[in-house]
């Protein structure tokens, strides 16, 4: 899992969050988080969710674009 399935951020932006083990202590899946776009995913999910090319394009995120900010803190200043 070298890049983010949603924004294609590079590996250095991807954080390993948690490893799920079975009752015998064997690895079942790993959860990752992208520090660029905040996408979280598990490597056992269907490709339509975690493969950049198979995901619907509509759901891609470009962290550089402006997204709506809920209750922007600046409005108080």
């Amino acid at each position, binding site marked *: 899992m070298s890049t983010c399935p*949603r924004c294609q951020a590079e590996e250095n932006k991807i*954080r390993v*969050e*948690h490893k*799920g*083990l*079975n*009752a015998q202590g064997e690895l*079942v*899946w790993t*959860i990752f*988080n992208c520090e660029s*776009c*905040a*996408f*979280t*995913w*598990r490597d*056992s*999910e*269907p490709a*339509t*969710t975690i493969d950049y090319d198979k*995901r*619907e394009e509509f*759901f891609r*995120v470009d*962290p550089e674009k402006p*997204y*709506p*900010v*809920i*209750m*922007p*803190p600046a409005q*108080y200043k």
Partner: protein
Amino acid sequence: MSNKNPPLSDKALEVARRIGSLRDFLEFLKENGQCINWSEEVYPEPDIRNVAVAAGRDSMNGPAVIFDNIAGYPGKKMVLGVHGSFTNIALLLGHPKGTTIKELFYDIISRWGADEPLLDFIEPDKAPVNENRLTSNFNLYDLLPLYRINEYDGGFYIGKANVVSRDPRDPDNFGKQNVGIYRIQVQAPGEFTLLSVPAHDMGRHIMAAEQEGVPLKISVMLGNHPAMCMFAATPIGYDESEFAYASQMMGSPMRLTKSGNGMDILADSEMVIEAELMNGVRSFEGPFGEFPGSYSGVRKIPRFKVTAISHRNDPIFENIYIGRGWTEHDTLIGLNTSAPIYAALIKDFPEVVAVNALYQHGLTGIISVKNRFAGFAKSVAMRALGTPHGTMYLKNLIMVDDDVDPFDLNEVMWALSTRTRAEDTIVIPNMPMIPIDPAAEVAGKGHRLIIDATSFMPPDKLGSDSKIVTPPAGPEIDAIAKVIQMLQNGGQS
């Protein structure tokens, strides 16, 4: 108003006294054939989603589903669909299976407005929720069997938490303490975002904390008393307590205790996550498949840091499937969305018979009213648009006569077919609207539609020469229908 409320039935009180927690309710549902265990191994995705959607198809009688064999989460339990059917809600209120939605509506109306809070406070060290307490090294991904609810959600959501916060400007005020359901996206092992807007009580608390530069502490209650979930989602006044409401509606005391960060919390919840607002921080959140059945987009929203976690032994993680309806969300909040609209209307217009705002949190509502004079229903519709919930949500309103059951869509369609003139529709352009309505003109703004499907009356001359067939109706026929249903079920009610 409490002395105006009729007493609850013996059965309702018996059930209320018995159910003090999620665990109690699951046991009760099991005894009544309304809770199943899914013990075959499931992967968090897509299996849990698939089972949730299939179980949710039957909005009248679908069961709660307990998952106890989730790959990667040995020993962990998760439950969905606790409020997934009207039968589950009927059982909670002390009714038998087969109770109609209309009967449930009138039951909730009869409980509405009771003002005697029934709350017992117990010491934190005696509260089951404090059986285990963590104060460092938080890992929500490990503690909770988290999963992606819909396939394009931005992450793993906690969709059914009851979040307690206090007004940071008036932290000792019990009434202004708010309990609400807000969507929570886990963003890191010990951090999450929580979506609220200025119109929510919680949104007010967030803005006040950031303006004053003071901490905002919250307690996130998971796996709660089933009445709490219903009333945390009910629009009540800013200075009214959801705890008080929930206990009054059940007619039996709820047990509260104090969280480590000073909130009142339910003593018997499965888990309570204490957290603090990261002042001024906004993080990417979403998309999330929301109750209109479409995704709400990516936004930057407030973020919280976990400060402590309390949980019962072997906690059960309660979550919800939400997306294109019908889903548990619709059943959970439908009647409690309808009741306050009715309660507001009836003050001025005693002719209002019933309000059905079950559809997508009231984006479409059907109001049954006895016309006082020609055009009266339209005036009532205007008043409904001005109720607190109506202001943002009631987008399409269908007005029907008092002889039409607004919960029976066959009857509503009959009224539309036989009593509607095209010129009896009103469009009010450019009104406020919830931002996540996909049909909004621009997010937060759109048009309202009123269809007056009530019958004509003087001075209107139309329809004066038609006479309605009056088939037998009333309690006697209702009783016969129940006998027929019983006979069909092999003698079982």
